């Protein structure tokens, strides 16, 4: 309709006698041609710009990388570097006038390289990199990113600061730990953990927001790589109403081997979320909680299939001969292939039987059960 009115208004007179359909069609033709031309131009100039940037960055990258290598080597061999030396290197890098150091592009390149090195090296090298970062005024550059409007730039800024300038910036980052954008919030929380602030684990008190697997991986990485952080007993969050927080804490309990958490983990066997049950069983196994063995066996029949499999694996890890009787019964039940297979794996691992010893203790087996036993004893499969 709009097209029609517009068409009547702008098209030459000869069209005006045409039916509505044709007028609309003519309008669409015009617009499509216009749009196509614009898109063409965008693609073309985008390419021109990209190839210009590409030439520039390749050159810059090479120069920066050479300078950095010299600098890093120098830093390490002298041990702690003096302020003057540092300033000299900084001015030298600043002097790369060909690069127009002040341009965002080159700065970002420099930061990227520093971050790359920082991620790949520890100790002396790492300290040297941080110093350089601050002396080049790149910290301010990253800080400014926190004041832009797009969340991904903020997140990038936070990531850079966390990586390069660990001593400061906690207060600057704090507001973002409550951001409504999940990605930004987790990035901020990760930085917060990394910066050794007063209460790094406050994010675990979150009761409603689901902490997705990917974010758990980020935070897990931050926490476990931070050697200075004071590790609390994570079982205090195991009664959180937020299942994802419980799951995350269970992972940390396993990593830091916190046996005190066993009683709380046992309570989680009744949790309403199957995933939580699963993880709890997994943790009990990894903590080799022998006290949990009879309880898991007692609960066994009430579990879902996936939890049953976890129990069988946990028993393998707990590795006590008392569970063999139970595992044997599970294997002989002919209920589910995967359960039988998992039970047999555990029997083999715990008992250390040879195939002959094992078969001697078992009644006549069906083809499937024999296949499972052969599978468990095949060295090629179980490398």
């Amino acid at each position: 309709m709009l097209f029609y009115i517009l068409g009547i208004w702008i098209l030459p007179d000869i069209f005006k006698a045409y039916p509505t359909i044709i007028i609309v069609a003519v309008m669409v033709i015009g617009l499509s041609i216009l749009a196509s031309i614009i898109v063409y131009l965008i693609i073309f100039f985008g390419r021109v710009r990209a190839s210009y940037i590409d030439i520039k960055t390749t050159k810059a990258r090479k120069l920066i990388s050479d300078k950095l290598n010299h600098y890093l080597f120098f830093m390490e061999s002298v041990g702690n570097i003096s302020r003057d030396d540092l300033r000299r290197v900084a001015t030298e890098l600043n002097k790369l006038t060909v690069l127009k150091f002040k341009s965002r592009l080159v700065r970002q390149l420099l930061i990227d390289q520093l971050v790359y090195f920082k991620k790949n090296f520890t100790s002396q090298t790492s300290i040297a990199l941080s110093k350089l970062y601050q002396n080049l005024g790149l910290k301010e550059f990253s800080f400014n990113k926190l004041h832009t409007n797009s969340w991904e730039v903020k997140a990038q800024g936070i990531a850079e600061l966390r990586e390069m300038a660990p001593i400061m910036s906690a207060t600057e980052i704090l507001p973002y730990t409550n951001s409504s954008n999940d990605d930004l919030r987790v990035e901020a929380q990760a930085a917060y953990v990394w910066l050794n602030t007063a209460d790094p684990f406050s994010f675990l008190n979150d009761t409603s927001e689901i902490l997705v697997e990917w974010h758990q991986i980020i935070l897990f990485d931050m926490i476990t790589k931070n050697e200075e952080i004071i590790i609390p007993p994570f079982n205090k969050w195991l009664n959180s109403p937020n299942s994802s927080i419980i799951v995350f804490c269970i992972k940390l309990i396993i990593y830091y081997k916190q046996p005190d958490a066993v009683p709380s983990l046992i309570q989680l066997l009744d949790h309403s979320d199957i995933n939580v049950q699963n993880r709890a069983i997994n943790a009990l196994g990894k903590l080799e909680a022998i006290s949990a063995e009879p309880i898991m066996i007692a609960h066994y029949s009430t579990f879902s299939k996936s939890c049953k499999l976890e129990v069988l694996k946990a028993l393998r890890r707990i590795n006590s001969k008392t569970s063999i009787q139970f595992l044997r019964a599970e294997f002989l039940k002919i209920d589910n292939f995967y359960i039988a297979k998992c039970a047999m794996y555990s029997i083999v691992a715990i008992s250390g039987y040879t195939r002959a010893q094992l078969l001697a203790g078992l009644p006549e087996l069906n083809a499937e059960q024999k296949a499972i036993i052969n599978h468990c004893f095949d060295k090629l499969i179980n490398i």
Partner: protein
Amino acid sequence: MEIHFQYYLHLIYDRLIFFYSVLIMLSYLTLLVLSIFEIKKYLKRNSYIDHKLLLSSPYAPGISVIAPAYNEAATIDYNVHSLLSLDYPCFEVIIINDGSTDDTLEILIDKYQLKPTAFAYYEQIITQPVKQLFKSSNPVYSRLLVIDKENGGSKADASNAGINAALYPIFLCTDVDCILRRDTLLKMVKPFIEEKVKVIAAGAVIRIVNSCEVESGVLTKVKIPAKFLPLFQELEYVRAFLVGRMAWSKVNALLLVSGGLGMFDKKTVIAAGGYDHASFGEDMELVTRMRGYMERQKTPYAVRYIPESLCWTEVPDNIRVFGSQRTRWTKGLAQNLWIHKKMIFNPRYGRFGMIALPYWLLFEWFAPIIEFTGILYYIYLILTHSINWDFAIILLAFVYTFSVMITVTAVLWDEITQKQYTSKTEVMKLCTAAFFEPFLYHPLALFFSLRGNYFFFTGKKLHWGNMIRTGFAGSKNLIKATVSKVKIRRKKQHEKR
């Protein structure tokens, strides 16, 4: 009588068909807008992220890479090798030798020092008999499992055998002749771990390898196809993936995750019954069935697409092979919609039933048929000298300019996502191809999809049911829910893959 006929004919073709095409165009525009939102979102979310974090994480989910091989002796060696060298901390590669008549298996045994094992293979989804399972005696290749089975005549059957043997909760289904980027697993697993709802399937952009430089199974330089047919197919792929798939991913109503590269949640796939070995479009059929299953379970879920080109595949460069491929695709689409017709316009299936399926029905399946009748109408007008040439040309230009605009914009989306080609001229070539596509390539595609429809409508009926093994008592309940007998038509069950 004659007058009535002409009156209705004119009414239909002058009005209704016009509105139909306007509707299609509007839907394209909508997809164009939706897709750029989804692409932007993806780019933002991944702009500052280090995917390598997954490499050192103990919680990176395990992935089984499943690739069926049928008579691939020429390239199997390199291709398996490149699958084995994907970057990921926890994965296995399962190659299914689907009864090859050449020495595919022998080459594998020789190169990877395979030995038969006592692998306890459990058939959750029924397939043609599995003869033997091999593992490598060389610890370097401990991630490799080779299944030797009898030919099942379809990729679906072979993939199902792979799923049966898969160890990990997520699997990636691909073709042995597809070339994957090394970080494919890192990128594709991300939707599975970053969403709050359960992700049941994910796909990524597939490109065309025909003119690219490949060295021992590794892509070293991306080049635009040089030949006529592959070039236009590249254009079509860019449009289909970056506009179509991304937009449907945005509204979570994706129907198709391509067989060349798709990652799936194993449990859901098995619960839904695995690939349908009688389908001509088993990839689309699987996703449709999985979605149907999830909707009935009333579990929130998602199917996601990522706009990155991770997989390069060879496309036909001669009309004959191209024709049979397209015919099969159309038949697969028609068959799929027919099998699942109960979901179409069924509010119980949410957005999927109310928007996505009707879209595919009206604008994908029926479009070529309607277009064809439109052409017949024009011929009729010309023959009866009742055509208004001015109008006809304007209407033709109307459709033409619009479709060029959509295609060129799709190329722009590709440029925004990642600049695949190294040189400007290559992109410009692609853009120029967009001008010629409507009258050079489109008629071909139209012809073959008509042929596919013809085969579909003239095929014989047959009864066919999902086959799942009912060996152990415990798994029976699961099976009952998924076994549904459906009627499908088919002409030849097993065409060459």
